[in-house]
């Protein structure tokens, strides 16, 4: 099943399709963010406690200063993490960045502070009755995989993989006589190399090398180790 998409219509007539993030990507980003904000809040609590008492001891009545300078910032960090970072990072948070997603309006634009605050206000509802159950159910059931806060604010979570320079580097292979299609495939294989099964990546690498270097004998190719195959592919992209 293909992921739902929204089409960003531009005046130049060159439309762009944005892939909407599904429940998995959303949950992944949330879990990362949850850990980060929990760690930040606990760090402040620990540092504040140590500074206030000069150690890990605790008195019966720590006083108002403890509440104002230790507890209050801890709660602010925990509860304001999402709205503050989403506004400051233009629809992203560290968790969203790691998960490769970002928030956009339904027109594909960067959402303003108003919609971002509004979607966070509705967290109260989405987090009911526990573990974001309402939010998770609406994400699964809606076409665009949105929680109630996103419906209210008119925002969407779309995939946002970093277009690193390596994406374009494959074109450099033009100098080595590779077709752009073959260069693209080699670059893709190299990027996914660590994640692929050794047997599978070896087979794909040999097939690719056989296409781009027809002069190599099949026996020679079969004898190449995984390290040799990878080095040969890298050389194919980088050597003129």
């Amino acid at each position, binding site marked *: 099943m293909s992921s739902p998409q929204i089409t*960003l219509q531009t005046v130049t*007539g060159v439309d*762009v399709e944005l892939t909407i993030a599904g429940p998995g990507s959303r949950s992944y980003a949330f879990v990362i963010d949850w850990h980060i904000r929990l760690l930040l809040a606990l760090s402040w609590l620990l540092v504040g406690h140590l500074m206030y008492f000069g150690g890990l001891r605790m008195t019966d009545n720590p006083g108002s200063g403890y509440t104002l300078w230790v507890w209050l910032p801890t709660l602010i960090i925990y509860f304001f993490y999402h709205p503050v970072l989403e506004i400051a990072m233009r629809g992203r948070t560290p968790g969203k960045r790691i998960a490769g997603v970002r928030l956009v309006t339904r027109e594909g634009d960067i959402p303003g502070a*108003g919609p971002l605050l509004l979607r966070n206000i509705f967290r109260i509802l989405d987090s009911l009755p526990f573990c974001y159950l309402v939010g998770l159910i609406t994400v699964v059931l809606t076409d665009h995989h949105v929680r109630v806060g996103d419906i*209210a604010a008119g925002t969407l979570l779309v995939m946002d993989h970093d*277009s690193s320079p390596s*994406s374009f580097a494959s074109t450099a292979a033009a100098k080595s006589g590779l*077709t752009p*299609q073959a260069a693209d495939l080699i670059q893709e294989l190299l990027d996914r190399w660590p994640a692929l099964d050794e047997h599978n990546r070896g087979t794909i690498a040999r097939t690719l090398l056989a296409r781009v270097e027809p002069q190599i004998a099949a026996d020679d190719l079969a004898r190449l180790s995984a390290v040799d195959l990878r080095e040969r592919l890298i050389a194919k992209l980088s050597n003129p």
Partner: protein
Amino acid sequence: MSDNGGLQAWATSRIAAWSDLGSILDGLERKRDHTVTETLRAIELYRALGRDLSIVRRTLPASRMTRALAQSYARLHAVIYRKPHNWRERLRSLFQDEIPQVVRELRGSIQLVALLFVLTAGAGYWLIATYPELIGLVASEQMIEGVEGGRLWTEDIVNIAPSSVISVGILANNITVSIVAFVLGVFFGLGTFYIIATNGLMLGAIFAFTHQYGMAGELLKFVLAHGMVELSVICIAGAAGMMLGESLIRPTHATRRESFRQAAAKTSKVLLLCALLLVVCGFIEGYISPDPDYPMINRVVIGFGWWIVMVGALSGRLFGGGKQRQLTPAGGL
């Protein structure tokens, strides 16, 4: 030259332009006040990227290059079509025009919610006046024992924690109640109805209980300075929640989802003002309300004064607005 050869030559000629794209886009996204030169460069880049993307899509569909170019193009599009950012003008428009306009639209709902609050408060008063033993349903054992011993729980507030801590706790609690009253409107208004009704019921019940021990006057003295605005704001948040519910029951747009979105964007603006008003209420409740040195007249003046400021803010007159104008489409908060 073959097709591939031509494509290779073209792609090679564009590598220099593409290699800096990431940093250029980061810079454009981060900055809000671009110079004319930067703007013209961005527009030129937008056109060039559009051409590149168009070519790559035909020749290398579903390739990494196409995906990367499409993503960069979408980012640049978002930057170019981003709404102008002038926070001073935005705030002026919000407080002078937009919030008063929403409040005018909410007037009927506010009256309805206020009536609900008054009626449930009356019901709570009647309930406890008739069946005093039911006070255990709305008040804690400690509160009941205190009143029975001739002491209001409000007298001990400043002994438990200093005013600053109390204020922060109270304002956070009040803002949460207002947000909950608003957000629960999504259940076709029933959630809001429940929050307003229970708050009214509890207030009426507590007054009836303290009245039985001749302490209703003391409680009124405590509530007066902050309560007028606090209760009004909760009713306004409730009215906003009711509008959310109504948008789902009687949609004003093609779909319930769109109707809900429009209602949420519109009414959430009022919540911002409500939160600001509740911050001051929290400080009044922390510093002035529990202080026995403040005479009744001072509390009346503060309570009414702050209420008049609230009315001025809601009508926009406090910010030099208040005239009915045609608004631009709602953008939320």
